[in-house]
């Protein structure tokens, strides 16, 4: 059995670093940070999301794809060529690390939709990309797109996260935001695609915890064209973000009020305007409420958000130093890269901490 | 002061209150044993006619004519409850003459009997109230 054939549940460690000024820094810090939380992983998955790492290709979608076989690669590339203009393609550089085994073929493509195909589809380009990613992931056996945003990339594998970081030579990348995940799946043989972050377009989610509302959320989000191929909580959360943010147009703060909606009793204690808004959001998107323990760090173009479930059943610490923002499962994971913090705090359950590039979007 | 109140709207005329009342004044634990082959003399009595029924028992009046008229001092009112000292009652029936509700009746042994809110037996909620299947008899505090 493989990831996606059954529902996978796991415990985890997460970490994220964000430079509000947009100053780019090396991926080494995030490896150091996640490595501190070694105990929270079991070597069955680790991964990173890095934003701002492809400035020279920032207008192109960067597809990171695992192939299990050459034939899969061939079939997939045919599909990509049919729908996209490929500006650049290459193997993703890795280095041999003894702990990382059985690696698939890992390729990277910088693409832009073929104008004719895009026009025919009557979709906007993002939706077009999403549709194509789902096509590949559901229809082409042995091919799996695990990153599809612009000027960002996901790097993940089966292994401890620090090994995964070294494997992908992450210290050689520079970006304004990194997130990381160390995985502790309870019962899976582990599959590369199953590691976090989970992403769609530029939305990435690293997630610690297990959600009880999984099937309620899954069956709802699938109604809107998402295919939950991996049967992981994280995948569902990523799709919910994409749906509510990109498709419905809710702000991130509003999204927090949907997925980690306050309790009705809390809502009723708010001033009228706020109460009405919260009531509306909770009622209108009732089936996207996420319950059960979770802490997540969501990365997206120009921003990052850290969020706990509404009961705060998982740990989460945030820190700030000058223009830098940090979030992690444990304080130590922040201290190890920046001991001298201006501020450190634990956000309340259900209150998303959102940081964005100064003057940037999101 | 908790009292027994009766609402004829809910009285079914089932007469269970009478049986529970009669049972309460016996020392038996089992009603079948207590009341088998016995003609009961309950202190609460159903009046019924043409589909209307209701139970009548002592109202424990604030100005009790039965107590005031009692020639022996056997009837007394204490803490709002009118009780009968059967030892002193000689069965003259002046109380029956006096009670405007017809809630006092002769007993088998010649003394009179009346509802004493079960304070001499089980105490607590009177048994007629507990035995009423439809909430037609209640034991509660009401504004005077």
């Amino acid at each position, binding site marked *: 059995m493989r990831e996606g054939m059954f529902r996978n549940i796991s415990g985890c460690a997460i970490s994220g670093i964000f430079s509000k000024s947009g100053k780019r820094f090396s991926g080494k810090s995030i490896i150091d940070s996640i490595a501190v939380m070694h105990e929270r992983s079991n070597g069955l998955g680790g991964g990173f999301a890095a934003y701002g790492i492809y400035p020279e290709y920032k207008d192109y979608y960067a597809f990171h794809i695992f192939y299990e076989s050459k034939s899969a690669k061939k079939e997939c590339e045919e599909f990509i060529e049919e729908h996209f203009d490929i500006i650049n393609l290459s193997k993703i550089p890795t280095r041999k690390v003894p702990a990382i085994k059985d690696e698939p073929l890992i390729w990277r493509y910088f693409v832009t939709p073929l104008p004719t195909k895009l026009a025919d589809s009557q979709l906007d380009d993002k939706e077009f990309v999403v549709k194509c990613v789902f096509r590949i992931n559901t229809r082409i056996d042995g091919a799996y797109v695990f990153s599809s945003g612009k000027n960002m990339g996901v790097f993940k594998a089966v292994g401890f996260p620090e090994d995964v970081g070294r494997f992908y030579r992450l210290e050689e990348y520079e970006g304004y935001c990194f997130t990381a995940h160390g995985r502790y799946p309870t019962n899976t043989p582990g599959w590369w695609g199953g590691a976090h972050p989970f992403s769609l377009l530029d939305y990435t989610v690293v997630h610690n915890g297990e959600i009880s509302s999984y099937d309620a959320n899954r069956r709802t989000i699938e109604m809107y064209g998402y295919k939950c191929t991996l049967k992981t909580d994280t995948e569902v959360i990523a799709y919910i973000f994409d749906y509510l943010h990109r498709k419905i147009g809710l702000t991130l703060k509003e999204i927090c009020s949907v997925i980690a909606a306050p309790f009705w009793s809390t809502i009723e204690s708010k001033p009228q305007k706020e109460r009405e808004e919260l009531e509306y959001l909770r009622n209108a998107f009732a089936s996207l409420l996420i319950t059960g323990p979770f802490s997540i760090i969501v990365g997206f173009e120009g921003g990052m958000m850290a969020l706990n479930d509404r009961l705060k059943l998982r740990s989460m610490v945030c820190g700030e130093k000058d223009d830098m923002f940090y979030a992690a499962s444990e304080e130590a994971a922040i201290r190890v890269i920046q001991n001298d913090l201006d501020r450190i705090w634990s956000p309340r359950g259900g209150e998303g901490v959102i940081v964005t590039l100064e003057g940037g979007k999101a | 002061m908790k*009292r027994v*109140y*009766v*609402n*004829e709207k809910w009285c079914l005329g089932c007469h269970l209150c009478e049986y529970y009342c009669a049972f309460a004044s016996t020392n038996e634990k089992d009603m079948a044993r207590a009341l088998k082959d016995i003609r009961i003399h309950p202190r609460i009595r159903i*009046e*019924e*006619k043409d589909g*209307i029924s*209701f*139970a*009548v028992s002592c*109202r424990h009046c604030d100005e009790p*004519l*039965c107590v*005031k*008229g009692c*020639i*022996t*001092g056997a009837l007394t009112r204490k803490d709002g409850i009118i009780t009968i000292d059967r*030892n*002193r009652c*000689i*069965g*003259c*029936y*002046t*109380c*029956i*003459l*006096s*009670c*405007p*509700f*017809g809630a*006092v*009746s*002769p007993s088998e042994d010649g003394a009179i009997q009346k509802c004493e809110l079960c304070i001499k037996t089980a105490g607590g909620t009177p048994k007629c109230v507990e035995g009423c299947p439809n909430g037609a008899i209640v034991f509660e505090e*009401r504004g005077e």
Partner: protein
Amino acid sequence: MKYVIIGNSAAAVGAVEAIRKNDREGRIVIISNESYHTYSRPLISYLLLGKTDENKMKYRSDSFYSENGCELMLNKTAVRIDPDKKTVLLDDGQNVSYDRLLIATGSSPFVPPVKGLEKVKNKFTFTTLDDAKRLESVLEENTKVLIVGAGLIGLKCAEGISRKKVETVCIDLSTRVLSSILDEEGSEIIKRHLENNNISFFLNHQIIELSENTAILDDNTEIPFDVLVMAVGVRPNISLLKDIGGKTNRGIVIDERCRTSIPDIYAAGDCCECIDVSSGEMRVMALLPNAYMQGECAGMNMSGADYVFDKAIPMNAIGLFGKHIITAGTYAGDVYYEADQENYKKLFYSNNKLNGYILIGNIEKAGIYTSLIRERTPLDTLDFDLICKVPGLMAFSKEERACKLGGIA
């Protein structure tokens, strides 16, 4: 405040209990010409019958006087009131001062002057405990007892002494027994019942002469006897008030607040007369319930409250050899009648009001009739046909029942 009560029976007790509702501090002095703790006079026949004893006859508990802070002066007779000085002179020369005075002197047996009465050794009246004790002491099996008077006192006496297996003869000037409370048919039922219980009657007769052991009637019948009981009737003890010019009639005249015509002097009980609401006439109603309620009314007003008792009616509950009679009110107006072997019922009504009733045998729920009289309930507000047949709350309107049973005002 100092309260003085002359008398120690139901009216006195009613007054004490009422005074203490309003005044826990004031002195209460009770003057009694008997030597007993307050006791219930009607019980003397039951004492003879063995249904009660001297201890159980106490009208109130032993602690009654101490609990209510009463100073009890036994074996003292009040002989004169000085309404100006507000004092009461006792037979021992003592003067007792009062702020408020209650006359509750009750009544005394009336003994008519009969030729030869002085020759009779064993002669008794029957209203006090001492009367009963003395009478009992002379009775033996087969003692011949002649009771003069077939009213309540005489007949209760006859019942009381029956335990001693005496031979009882009862004579009365009237043609009927219990003539003051029963009609002809009712009297006849009771007379037959008493005769079945070995009481002989000479009605419509009077004694013209007595010797020590024989009475000669107006038709010259000679009736031998061992013991003579004079139970012709009672007279209200009104002299204390009458002597000082207070308004009296057959009894002391009181208003609905039990005031006499003299300030600060109240009267209650058998010594009084007041309005009978069933007839609207002034009347002496020597009945224990009335005595208590008048005493209570007097006590309330003496201790500062404004309290009215205007619901006095004649009424009687009496049992004779297992047969019960309950009567009330005035026997005037139209009649509802019902009778069978055991039971007899008559209701008297006029002008939309129930005036009176007689029940013999089945007396259940009689109080419902009594209340119709007392409250002067308009009969068209209830199902009169039904209530005649079956006394009950069923005859009242639903609303009326709701307030009676549901405590809904």
